[in-house]
């Protein structure tokens, strides 16, 4: 499970709890009983217990593993600067010469080897 989906699951559970709580309060039977102080404290108790359970589950949940990334090799033509990207193969290194350029027959060389970017870009800091 990715970091984001785990984070979203926590919020989803919390939202579900609030909805259940509101549903209980919103039912006619519950409204009738709402006048009774004991019913209200019981409902509040259930809600509190569920919250404790949720936070405990979050506390003991597995630490998230870093996401898996593909490694890309970027090839550039020496003559016309055309680039092509493929998956990294063992034996690739910068600036290994490899093959001919499809457009000008110039020699291609490996310009860069880097992991593909995953996920959202970080927001700029406000300070």
């Amino acid at each position, binding site marked *: 499970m990715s970091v984001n989906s785990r984070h979203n699951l926590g919020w989803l559970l919390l939202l579900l709890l609030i909805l259940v709580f509101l549903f209980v309060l919103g039912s006619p039977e519950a409204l009738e009983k709402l006048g009774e102080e004991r019913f209200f404290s019981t409902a509040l*108790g259930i809600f509190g217990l569920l919250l404790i359970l949720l936070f405990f589950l979050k506390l003991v949940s597995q630490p998230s593993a870093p996401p898996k990334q593909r490694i890309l090799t970027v090839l550039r033509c020496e003559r016309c600067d055309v680039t092509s990207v493929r998956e990294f193969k063992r034996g690739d290194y910068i600036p290994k010469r490899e093959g001919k350029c499809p457009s000008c027959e110039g020699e291609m060389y490996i310009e860069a080897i880097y992991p593909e970017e995953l996920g959202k870009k970080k927001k700029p800091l406000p300070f």
Partner: protein
Amino acid sequence: MPFLQHLAGEGGNLWSLVFQLFFIAFIIAYFLYGQRIQIAIWNRDIERNLRRLKFLRDRARETAIKAVKEIGKPEEDPVPSIDRFLETFFIQPVDMDPAGIVWKLDRLLDVRDLSMKDAVRRIAPKASDTELNNLENLLEAALDLNLIYRIVRHYYLMGKRTNAYIITAQLHMMLPLIMDIAYAYDGAVKAFAEGQPIGDGAGPLLACKLLAGKKVEKIEKDMVFGETELEGRHVIVLKAEGPGGNVGKPGEAIEKLIDTYGYRPAIIVMVDAAQKFEGEDTGDVADGVGAAIGGIGTEKYRIEEVAHKHKIPLYAVIIKESLREAIAPMKKEIYEGVDKAIETVKKIIREKTREGDLVLIAGIGNTIGIAQ
């Protein structure tokens, strides 16, 4: 049940009573055993991370065994030798009397390096020099992961056995940083096994770009240099020999270029990947004065000595990245940072030297996946 019903009172809600009792019990338990509960939660957290550390350590060991078998094609089973390698250690020289410690340390590091290379050569007899360097880097990363796992386990068990809460608390508070380093080594294991460039290779990559199409010569241990023209100045570019995983000995190489070969550069510009502060962007470039080189300090000492002896100004250009990024596969931002660093180097050369001067540029870092 009737008893409980009786306790709840006439018309009383039984559930309400149960919850009240539960909360009272919870508050009393937390009041009396709060610290123990906290320690138990921390211990559980440490255990979970220890399991993950063990997994990372075992995976690195398996990767190393697989790579050794594939690349080195040993005739004997390499597992006992690899396990022995993963337990090796290094003892720093005594520093009570620090005079002369640099040379003692330098000698010990040379011995360590040689013995590690010998060990890897024995484990993987069919590997080429490039593959040998990569395998050495891979085994060192596995060794570091093994060390992290053993240290964390040691403090965890010690804290538990002696009930020394302070040890457990400190370990728990340090865990996020320790795990960050462990994940970085995990990324490095993969990069070393495959021979991919890592973030620390920013300096050698800059040197490689400057030396594109130029003839290079070997100088000193695992170091190469080439000559080129930049902004109307004659430039000597120095880097570790790639594409195998290698940092070389830039200090000794600069010493040799100046003292033995007789080059007299007007300035020395050192380019290295450097630790960024939190909040800074990866791949940002900054320049300053001094020897931009990490490590234990012996190479830095040599460079400062030779620069001082010949009164050569030392300039530094750094490409910012985190510790984790330095040993993980090189990010796109770092490639972009290298291009920015080339412009900064040109600017320094224009500002600090005259046309026709000799300039020495040293690309410092691990050159895995980067040839010349």
